[in-house]
Structure formats: C-alpha cells, structure tokens
C-alpha cells in the first residue's frame, strides 16, 4: 500500500499547489476588474489629510 500513501500525499501536494496558484490568479483578476479595486488613495493629501 506504499503507492496508495504516495498517491494520497501527491494529491494533497497538488491541491496545495493549486490553491496557491489559483488563489493568486483570483486576486489578480479581482484587482484588475473595474470597480472592484476601490481602495483609499495612498497619497494622504488626496484623501483630505495633511500631507
């Protein structure tokens, strides 16, 4: 049953790799989508603060 255990370990590694790659892809897509990336402007003066 060594090969069964090896296959399960490989499956978990592949799932982990897919999570890293696809979650990163999802973040990139979300950031690129018009209207979804509304975040406070990093320039404080443009937010009305004292810069």
């Amino acid at each position, binding site marked *: 049953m060594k*090969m069964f255990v*090896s*296959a*399960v370990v*490989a499956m978990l590694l592949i*799932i982990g790799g897919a999570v890293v790659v696809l979650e990163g892809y999802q973040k990139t897509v979300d950031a690129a989508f018009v*209207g979804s990336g509304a975040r406070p402007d990093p320039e404080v003066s443009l937010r009305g603060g004292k810069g």
Partner: protein
Amino acid sequence: MVAFQRSWGLAAALAIALVIVVSGDALAQSGQPTSVNPTASSVKEGQLLDALKPPGSGPSAVTGRVSIPDTKSSVLIQPAGRDWRQIRQETLPFYGAIAILGMLAALVIFYLIRGRIAIDGGPSGRTILRFASADRFAHWLTASTFILLALSGLNLTFGRKLLLPLIGPEAFTALSQAGKFVHNYGSFAFALGVVLMILLWLKDNIPSGADLAWFSKGGGLIGSDHPPAGRFNGGQKVIFWVVVIGGVALSITGYSLMFPFVFTDIAGLQEANMLHGLIAVGMVAVILAHIYIGSVGMEGAFDAMGKGEVDLNWAKQHHALWVEKTEMKGKGAATPAE
C-alpha cells in the same frame, strides 16, 4: 282606457321579447361565445419572451442596455436557463439516482447469485508481478481523487434533499463549502492521474479480437469458463475507456465551469454543467462495479493494485494470454509468495 293600457303593455312586452330573441340569434350567428374565458386572450410566457427579444438576437436572451464594461449584466431574462434549471434540479437527480442505486442493487443481486469468484484450484503460493509502482501510483492517484470528487459532486446534486434535513443548514453549508474547495482544487490531481493512465496503459487497451471472445463468454462472470485475456480483459478495457473519455470530458466541462466566461458564454456554461453532471453520475455507477469486482467480488483481484503481485493461478485464470507472453519474455517471472 283600461283596454288601451292593456294592449299597450302587451305590445311593449312583445317588443322586448323580440329584441332579446333577435339579439341572441345575432350573437349565435356571429359565433361569439356566450360565456367568458378569462385566459383566452392572455399572453403566453413564451410569446412574451419572443416579443421582448431584440431583433436578430436569436433565442439566447432578453437584454437591456448597460453602460458598465461588463456587458453580460445587460441580460434580463435568459429563457434557456429554465431548461438548465429543470435538468439540474429534476432530471439529473432522477436519472442519477436510478443509475447509482440501480448499479448498487445489481451488484448485490449479482453477489447473492454468483458469490465471490474464487481462484480455481486455490492460490498456488507463487506470485507474478502484475502492476509496477508507477502503475499503482497512477491508479491510486486517480482513484483517491475520483472518490473525493464524486462525493463532493454528489453532494451538489443530492445534498440539499438528503443531507440538509439530516445535519441542518450550518453543517450543510460548511460541508458544501469545503466540498466545493476539494472539488475544484482536487480536479488537477484527477486530471494528472488520467494523463498518467493514458501514458502507461493505452497500448494495452486497444480493442482486439480476444475481447469479442471474452465478451461472448460473459467474461467468466457468468458460468465457470474463463476466456483467455491479455494484460487487460474486455471488461477492464471498457473501464479504461470510460475513465479516459469520461475523465477528459469531465475535465473540459469542469474547467470551463471553474473559469466562467473564459472559454464559453452562459449557454455554453449551462451545457457544460449538464454534461458534467450526467457524465459524472454515469462514471460513478461504472466505477462502483469496478470497485466491487476489484475487492469483494473476486478473490485475489485486490492484490494487483494492493501489492502489485498476484497469485499465478489467479493470473492464469483471468489473464492467460498475458501470463504466457510475460513468461516467454522472462519478465515478472513467478516467485514464491512471502
């Protein structure tokens, strides 16, 4: 005076009666219904949808107009979505249940009639290498992920009716969310397993004349005669092609659903979803039979994928042509069992 009034009243009554008769006759002659049907002139839903479609837009959708970049949001009504929902909620669970429960019932009946298929003459005590490490790795990678994908997929089809009433909404939500996660990310391991199986076993799964002879004798499952077979018999070749063709189809439809609107539009996504579900429940039914015959259904069969080595008598009984060929090559020569 009284006589005059009587004759005037009589004349008036006759006139009213005449008007009623004439008007009734006129209505009957014009074919107008005498009772009112409130739905007779109402607009049917299909007609309304047809009328609302923009000219030349085809049957896809009723759309409005939007100014944001995502033009898909202009869709108001997509009539085909109703057919998809009907198949998704009614047809697929119905035929899926028939396929899976039918296969389980057939296997129980087969076991009660045929019992466990024993090794003729019992184990010889000598073994022969049936599957190398790479073969077993590919098998277990595909098998373990298929079980996870099947369970998480069946939850999408049957979970709301079967599990939700049992475990409640909170637990069902958590389980379904975890199931979706496993289904999406586990699919890559399954696809890799199918590719490995194609690379390793394709050449031994090309249909041949021996398969026809194998099928004509019921593959040894019916009766006691075991037709000779090569490395894979006719039944195993059917399983192989079901897994390969089904696996590729599931991967194509599944990835088009995982990346919506990247490969196809909404109609394509609905078709992919329907195909994905139908192929998947069919594969689950077939794989149930494969699991049965590879475990409780046949003595010595599990060793092929468990240890990689099988008893020589088992191999001669079920794969006589393969044993002959292997012994001629001097590969995987029989060794005493440990």
